[in-house]
């Protein structure tokens, strides 16, 4: 069917071309019978043909024109100028629609009815219109006439303009170097403006709405699903996204293939879906959006998903993987095997998506145009393919920067902000071996371009500038560069596959002096730098966990080296963030070291009582109420502490020793730290004692600091005898007797279980604190 529609387009176009002369001649002499017959035959054929396709607009238009022309032929109506104009307007519209069929543009149907109405308008009315002036004949027709250009010609125009831009840039450079008179400069400015305008116009001729690609989908989905006895509803979004005409053609096959696959292999037959508790009709979503210099096309279905294990089995039996390699694969890597040649999960090759073309070809095709295809699948829930394709052969605004003595370009569309590291509002924090830039209080992951590219930086860390980037489909991050040069309009050419394969570049361009520059791919840089964490994950890493639901796996802890070189761990839950501080922010006051950070003054531990002589790094620890700073040398790792703890001989900064990777590591006693700092704050006095089930990790890492922050000394249930208040899980039966009788029960679900339930939800902080103070008040009275 697709072949046929192409035939139809080609044939109609040929007829229109052949008709071109006739139209003009008929316009001049409407009574010319031979011309009338030609034009009649055209609309007649179009009408007859489009009946075979689902093209109601074309059919309606050609039918209307045919009817009127038949009347003219039979002598029932004169071929007045109004009628001629109306018929020609319809022929023009037919031409536009046929072109749109080919290119996928959409043309508003709003005035179709008006065009048809014009045909049947009373002759006198159209005559009157005509009598206005001779010019109205032409004005009455749709003003937009189009001609066809070969893509080759457009390409030549485009590359001509590209060369012109380069020549202009070079001229501009030479003019800057040599003293010139104002008249020359003014003339040069004019040339520049002309070139810019022309470049815009030509660029636009190559751009097309992606709708072009999407219009054929509803029909394809309908035909395929009915052929396969499946029900699939299609949702299409983002048809107004524009990209290079050539790109559209390059994406057509891969997109078609993925959609076919989704219907054939993804979406289950209605019976299976119902049995799996899904709606009987499958959902297929195709959407496009532009993000910087890339277009993202998502194709997702809610079908059975990709069975990664099956793929692995097949890969092993096809000798693509060894058993050992297979064992090491993560879920995403297993799913990605779909792109390997010869691996298709379907038991048999079907007529729909078989055809010997696999996802390996899809990937190859996308990569050939400098794109990337990703897959994400949940077994039983569906698959999402994401095609990321660049806008190649275009001129884009870019920023030139350098790293390791080499100039690179960054698409300006991906740039959010450029900041100098010397700027006061910028701070660099180290975190678990990586870095975070804090820009005006907002923390974003940071990497260095020289590191990512494996070249030696020319500027020191403090001299680097940071480019804040928002890559296509990714999260904001910052990249440090040696120097920031200039904003430029660059002619981007696709880079060879071997260059694209690095995943770091989006294309190449030429500098003013004619030397090549690589255009960086912001997503690729982030991926290479390992910045695939999304913002939330980073926050989670940096701050306390929101809800540690897997306490069995041990406590997440930060392994670091103290200023004195000892290795210690601290529960990650209490680490707010890591910062660099200068010695002049640290003072010995009120009996201990304190550090000023912003407008806060925090007690500083970890440095003894000597103000350090140089810049140090601090851990900002928080128990939810109190903050403490702890000076340290560097972060070694993020670890999970599961091993047995040997308690320290005496209470102090270190609560004990544990084994991490065979090495003895001291555990920083956060309780003692907070208590110590709090006591300095409060100036002593006996603290109320609260007994906690300290063997419960949630209680110990999350609740404990809050209770301590409220001024309590926390002991374990084993020492409950001395406690003033006992906190327990509502679910626990085995509660030690408490002489004072004050028990606060904490439940893990938000719902209350019956009226008698006086327990408090574990994240109801206010309720918890007020319960504590209520009990404390009773205690003091009693």
């Amino acid at each position, binding site marked *: 069917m697709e072949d046929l529609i192409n*035939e139809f387009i080609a044939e109609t176009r040929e007829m229109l071309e052949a008709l071109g002369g006739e139209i003009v001649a008929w316009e001049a002499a409407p009574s010319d019978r031979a011309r009338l017959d030609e034009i009649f035959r055209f609309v007649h054929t179009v009408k007859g043909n489009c009946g*075979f396709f689902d093209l109601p607009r074309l059919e309606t238009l050609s039918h209307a024109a045919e009817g009127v022309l038949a009347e003219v032929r039979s002598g029932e109506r004169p071929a007045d100028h109004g009628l001629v104009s109306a018929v020609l307007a319809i022929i023009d519209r037919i031409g536009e629609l046929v072109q749109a069929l080919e290119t996928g543009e959409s043309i508003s149907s709003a005035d179709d009815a008006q065009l048809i109405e014009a045909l049947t308008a009373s002759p006198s009315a159209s005559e009157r219109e005509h009598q206005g002036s001779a010019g109205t004949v032409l004005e009455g027709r749709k003003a937009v006439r189009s001609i066809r250009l070969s893509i080759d010609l457009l390409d030549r125009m485009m590359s001509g303009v590209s060369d012109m831009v380069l020549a202009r840039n070079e001229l501009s450079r030479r003019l800057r170097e040599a003293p010139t008179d104002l008249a020359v400069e003014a003339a040069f400015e004019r040339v520049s403006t002309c070139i810019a305008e022309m470049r815009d116009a030509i660029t636009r001729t190559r751009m097309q709405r992606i709708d072009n690609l999407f219009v054929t989908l509803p029909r394809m989905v309908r035909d395929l699903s009915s052929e396969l006895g499946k029900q699939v509803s299609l949702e299409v979004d983002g048809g107004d996204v524009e990209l290079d005409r050539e790109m559209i053609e390059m994406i057509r096959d891969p997109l078609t293939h993925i959609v076919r696959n989704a219907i054939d292999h993804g979406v289950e037959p209605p019976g299976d879906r119902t049995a799996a508790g899904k709606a009987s009709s499958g959902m297929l979503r195709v959407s496009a959006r532009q993000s910087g210099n890339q277009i993202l096309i998502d194709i997702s279905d809610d079908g059975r998903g990709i069975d990664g294990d099956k793929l692995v089995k097949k890969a092993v039996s096809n000798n693509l993987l060894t058993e050992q390699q297979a064992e090491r694969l993560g879920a995403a890597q297993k799913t990605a095997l779909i792109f390997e040649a010869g691996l298709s999960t379907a038991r048999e090759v079907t007529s729909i998506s078989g055809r010997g073309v696999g996802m390996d070809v899809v990937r190859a095709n996308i990569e050939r145009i400098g794109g990337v295809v990703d897959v994400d699948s949940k077994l039983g829930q569906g698959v999402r393919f994401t095609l990321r394709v660049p806008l190649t052969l275009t001129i884009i605004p870019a920023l030139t920067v350098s790293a390791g003595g080499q100039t690179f370009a960054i698409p300006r569309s991906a740039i959010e902000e450029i900041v100098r590291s010397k700027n006061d509002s910028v701070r660099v924090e180290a975190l678990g071996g990586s870095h975070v830039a804090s820009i005006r209080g907002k923390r974003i992951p940071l990497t260095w371009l020289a590191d990512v590219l494996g070249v030696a930086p020319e500027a020191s860390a403090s001299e680097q500038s940071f480019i804040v980037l928002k890559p296509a489909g990714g999260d904001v991050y910052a990249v440090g560069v040696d120097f920031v040069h200039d904003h430029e309009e660059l002619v981007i050419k696709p880079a060879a596959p071997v260059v694209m394969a690095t995943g770091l570049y989006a294309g190449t361009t030429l500098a003013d002096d004619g030397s090549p520059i690589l255009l960086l791919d912001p997503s690729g840089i982030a991926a290479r730098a390992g910045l695939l964490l999304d913002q939330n994950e980073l926050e989670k890493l940096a701050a306390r966990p929101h809800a540690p639901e897997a306490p069995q796996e041990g406590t997440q802890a930060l392994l670091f080296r103290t200023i004195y070189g000892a290795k210690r761990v601290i529960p990650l839950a209490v680490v707010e963030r890591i910062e660099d501080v200068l010695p002049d922010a640290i003072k010995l006051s009120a009996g201990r070291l304190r550090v000023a950070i912003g407008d806060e003054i925090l007690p500083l531990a970890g440095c003894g009582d000597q103000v350090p002589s140089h810049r140090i790094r601090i851990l900002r620890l928080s128990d939810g109420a109190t903050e403490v700073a702890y000076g340290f040398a560097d972060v070694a790792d993020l670890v999970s502490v599961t091993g047995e703890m040997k308690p320290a001989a005496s209470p102090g900064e270190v609560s004990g020793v544990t084994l991490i990777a065979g090495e003895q590591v001291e555990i920083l006693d956060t309780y003692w730290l907070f208590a110590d700092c709090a006591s300095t704050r409060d100036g002593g006095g006996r603290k109320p004692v609260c007994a906690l089930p300290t063997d419960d990790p949630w209680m110990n890492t999350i609740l404990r600091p809050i209770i301590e922050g409220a001024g309590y000394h926390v002991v374990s249930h084993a020492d409950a005898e001395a406690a003033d208040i006992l906190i327990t899980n509502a679910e626990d039966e085995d509660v030690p007797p408490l002489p004072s009788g004050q028990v606060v029960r904490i439940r893990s679900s938000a719902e209350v279980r019956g009226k008698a339930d006086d327990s408090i939800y574990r994240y109801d902080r206010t309720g918890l604190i007020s319960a504590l103070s209520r009990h404390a008040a009773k205690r003091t009275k009693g």
Partner: protein
Amino acid sequence: MKSCLVVDDSKVIRKVARHILETLNFSVDEAEDGRQALSRIETKMPDVVLLDWNMPVMSGMEFLRTLRQQDFDVQPKVVFCTTENDAAHIRAAIEAGADEYVMKPFDRETLESKLQIVGVA
């Protein structure tokens, strides 16, 4: 195997017709206008002609009249294609010697039944 000559100036129609006819087990020959159709017939007589009406060079009507004047041993059946459901138009075609008519767009079933009516399928 029965044979059919498809006469239509539109390649699209010829392709559609060929596709359908081939699934109906016909051998298919094509002509772009009436004159070409006549010369085809001289070299190879089909069992049936699927004839478009409105064609350049020689229209369907002209072709049909000429065909029916020829002194062949066996005349082919002629099914003419039209888009008009116009009694006068159809009558003119039948009078000129058409055996049956079929409306465009046609599908397999319609065409098959028309061919059955004229006794070639």
